[in-house]
């Protein structure tokens, strides 16, 4: 089965549009809820038949749910490697669901329902991982969307719930609310002023945690961090969300302050750095993904500081997603060797900037 991305509502990446609060610092806000369907062993212990029945139940319920009325069901277990990687690069499926994680081979019944702002992973670590992903810093909007979907789904599919432990999940780190609320945040100011380690240590003390761009186990590249709640039990969803909101607001203020300090104390160094980054992106002939990410980080900082105008956050966001390996292979319509990948990335970035930001300067 091959994947037609054009069928996905907003290509499954509506959050890229650069709208919402502080889009240059907070790219997106996500709320995900982990649920299991009563009567079946959890995914990793279930038989193929059980997983397929779980999927059938979710699909049937989805037809009656308003926020999933135009959702597309993608049978991840039937996709070619490249398409699974593509969905992962779009943040629509986890590494585990896509079978890209050596520890967890692809499972029968692995699927994702992609709607507008919301999606449902089926047969991930838990039977159901539903999530709302929205642009900018919008925890309330994301929560409302996730909650509405959870209520709709929960009246049609019986979830495993216990009055003492809450929603029962495969990994006890998710037990209780099953909720992970996170923001994808860009913190170059704090990295450059070397304040970042203090901020990250502070997050951990406050019951929050951070990860790289692709969630669990991923490295931090391009100064992008995912900040989320660490615990899921003993506090209500509202409390967890309020806490995250307050702390993230504080981090955003610290980042803005760091940027002001940089501009004040080392303005010409920063200007030189970001313009060099922009020039490289505009003219380079070979770009690795990590290099592109770091350069994009510099240019994003410049756009936030209004040092470079005529370039939108939307374009930067698209570059971030579409310059990844599987996306480039799809664009080129063939498998790329390592050096071909470098060439293709540089070409794509040049063309994109020429088309969408011809007057940037």
């Amino acid at each position, binding site marked *: 089965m091959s994947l037609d991305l054009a069928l996905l509502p907003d290509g499954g990446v509506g959050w890229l549009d650069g709208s919402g609060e502080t889009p240059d610092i907070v790219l997106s806000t996500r709320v995900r809820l982990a649920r*299991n369907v*009563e009567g*079946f*062993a*959890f995914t*990793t*212990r279930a038989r193929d038949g059980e997983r397929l029945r779980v999927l059938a139940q979710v699909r049937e319920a989805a037809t009656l749910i308003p926020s999933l009325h135009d959702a597309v069901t993608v049978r991840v277990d039937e996709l070619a490697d490249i398409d699974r990687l593509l969905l992962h690069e779009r943040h629509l499926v986890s590494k585990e669901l896509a079978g890209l994680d050596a520890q967890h081979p692809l499972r029968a019944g692995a699927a994702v329902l992609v709607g507008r702002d919301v999606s449902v992973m089926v047969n991930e*670590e838990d039977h159901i991982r539903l999530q709302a992903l929205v642009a900018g810093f919008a925890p309330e909007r994301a929560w409302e969307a996730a909650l509405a979907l959870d209520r709709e789904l*929960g*009246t*049609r*599919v*019986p*979830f*495993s*719930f*216990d*009055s*003492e*432990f*809450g*929603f*029962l999940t*495969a*990994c*006890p*780190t998710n*037990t*209780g*609310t099953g*909720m992970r609320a996170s923001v994808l945040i860009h913190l170059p100011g704090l990295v450059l002023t070397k304040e970042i380690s203090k901020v990250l240590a502070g997050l*951990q*003390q406050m019951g929050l945690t951070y990860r790289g761009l692709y969630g669990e186990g991923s490295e931090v590249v391009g100064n992008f961090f995912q900040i989320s709640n*660490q*615990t*899921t*039990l*003993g*506090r*209500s*969803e509202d*409390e*967890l969300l309020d806490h995250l909101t307050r702390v993230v607001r504080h981090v955003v203020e610290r980042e803005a302050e760091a940027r002001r300090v940089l501009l004040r104390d080392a303005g010409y160094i920063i200007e030189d750095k970001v313009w060099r980054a922009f020039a490289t992106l505009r003219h380079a002939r070979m770009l690795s993904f990590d290099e592109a990410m770091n350069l994009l980080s510099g240019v994003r900082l410049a756009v936030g500081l209004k040092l470079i105008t005529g370039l939108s956050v939307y374009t930067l966001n698209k570059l971030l997603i579409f310059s990844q390996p599987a996306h480039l292979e799809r664009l080129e319509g063939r498998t790329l060797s390592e050096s071909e990948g470098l060439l293709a990335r540089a070409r794509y970035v040049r063309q994109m900037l020429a088309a969408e930001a011809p007057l940037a300067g």
Partner: protein
Amino acid sequence: MLCDQCKERDAVVHLTQIVENAVTQLHLCEQCAAERGVETTIATPKHPLGDFLKAVQQQAMVPSAEATRCAACGMSLKDFRATGRLGCARCYGTFQVSLRELLRRVHGSATHAGRSYNGPQPAPWQRANSVRELHDRLKRAIDTEAFEEAATIRDELRGME
């Protein structure tokens, strides 16, 4: 000496605080101290799951705990230690004693405080069917002397009837 906070475990951390010139002494167990953010010399791993699995390991050293298997999915604590994941929703009942302790370590609490959930309302005929089915299962469980399972089914039936 018992912990001033939980009044359950032995106090191992003795904290002397000076607040507005008044000296107070607080005696805490390791967990309550950690919950209050008091750093102790006992190193605690940063990653919650690491912490969790370590605790499972300790639990699993008790032979009886090691031998227990979930009646529904066959999961043992040993399996859990190897994968970090429980096998099914029933595992929460089977391993509840260990889990309470472990959840407290990971989350600082073992009791859900979030949204409640009632599940789909079954159609009347579905209800009648499942009550009948539960009665059958209860009988089977008693016949095979699976008393733990029988007790669970009985509770379920009480809830439904």
